């Protein structure tokens, strides 16, 4: 999520709050539209598979977007936190805090849909497959961040400590991923078979991309709403908050 519009003007919570409020309905509409198209396409336009059981494969149209978002949002959090540490901007830290629950939710949903897919395709709810395991660890990283945030009362320390934690986590993610995927270093060759995107059947690709965009738009909605709440809570002693219509009674 990047703001290319006149950055410094919107770097203060007071000016970003109304802007976020205006953006939310647009993202919500986009998200609803994309979900409608995406879900329709996923369930009706993608190839039907013969056996009754394999129909469940269609859950990948939720699974894959959600997994991608879970990973992407962590990266976005790291970027915002780094910006906050370097430029000492409060809003960046608030953004990072707003993203965390959404990212954690998607990661959890990714594990859940992955488990459902696993059960219907291979008969087990869980498998210590390297991908699933790494994804579980990502969930732990999200939870660690949120736990640290809530354990520290002082907002300044809380923001900076969790930012540092994110960055350390980010630095270690490749190592963790690699160690889980490749526990035997002597025999580490290609990790998985990855079918290039070009080889995926057209309809499936379209459905997946549409769903990914839909989930992404949805994440804007939930993150911006949460961000507005965080702004209100943190800035509650400021004049501009007291003058807001929703606050002044």
């Amino acid at each position, binding site marked *: 999520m990047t703001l290319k519009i006149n950055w410094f003007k919107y770097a203060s919570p007071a000016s970003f709050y109304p802007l976020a409020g205006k953006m939310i309905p647009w993202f919500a509409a986009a998200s609803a539209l994309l979900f409608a198209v995406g879900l329709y396409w996923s369930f009706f336009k993608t190839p039907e598979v013969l056996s009754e059981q394999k129909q469940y494969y269609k859950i990948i149209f939720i699974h894959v977007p959600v997994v991608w978002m879970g990973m992407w949002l962590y990266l976005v959090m790291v970027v915002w936190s780094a910006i906050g540490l370097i430029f000492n901007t409060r809003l960046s830290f608030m953004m990072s805090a707003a993203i965390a629950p959404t990212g954690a939710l998607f990661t959890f949903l990714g594990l859940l849909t992955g488990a459902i897919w696993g059960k219907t395709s291979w008969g087990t709810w869980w498998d210590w497959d390297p991908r699933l395991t790494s994804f579980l660890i990502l969930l732990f990283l999200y939870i660690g961040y949120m736990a640290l945030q809530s354990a520290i*009362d*002082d*907002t*300044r320390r809380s923001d900076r400590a969790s930012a540092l934690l994110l960055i350390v986590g980010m630095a270690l993610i490749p190592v963790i991923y690699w160690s889980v995927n490749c526990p035997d270093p002597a025999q580490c060759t290609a990790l998985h078979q990855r079918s290039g995107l070009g080889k995926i059947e057209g309809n499936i690709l379209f459905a997946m991309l549409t769903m990914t965009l839909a989930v992404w738009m949805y994440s804007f909605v939930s993150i911006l709403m949460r961000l507005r709440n965080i702004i209100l809570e*943190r800035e509650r*002693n400021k004049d501009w908050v007291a003058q807001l219509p929703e606050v002044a009674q």
Partner: protein
Amino acid sequence: MDNTLEVRQLCCERGDKRLFSDLNFSLPAGSLLYVEGANGSGKTTLLRALCGLFTPECGQVLWNGEDSHKLGDAFRDQVIYLGHHNSLKLDLTGIENLHFSLAVDGVKAGEEALLEALASMGLAGYEDLPVRVLSQGQKRRVALARLLLTESPLWILDEPFTALDVKAVDHLQSIIASHVNQGGMAILTTHQEVALTSGQIQRIRLGEHV
């Protein structure tokens, strides 16, 4: 060597509350600054911001014209800070504590110098006892003994007279006074005054700077 500490438009926030803002003062060599204010007005936060433990929201702390953060170790070398804690390891003896705090400060002092410092703080005979068995006042005096051996010109002392009896208070006042009279600088929060024979005294009252 004429040092100056300058503070420009300093503001500090703690827990979403602004403690003070737009604080300006200049402290030349040979002067003493009293920081006064009610409880919670930010005196301790100000002192911690000056020595670098706390990052102020805005403003600058300048040492001889240069930003103290940029100077880093070079600035920290010139400062000694005594906060509310005595900063003593209870399991170590008085002389061991003194030795280690000075060593971390970069000051090398031989055993005789350490013993002398402790003795002049009225702790002769107590140097080899673990600090945990000393009284509050005695612990404070062990902590204050650093002042006798430090080479740093800027002393930042937060309520240094706490737990001291009348005699020790007098003694500390004379130590601070002599330091300032010789061209050093001191910043104190306290209710007890120090009599200077030369140099100037400044005062700042927090709680009016919001």
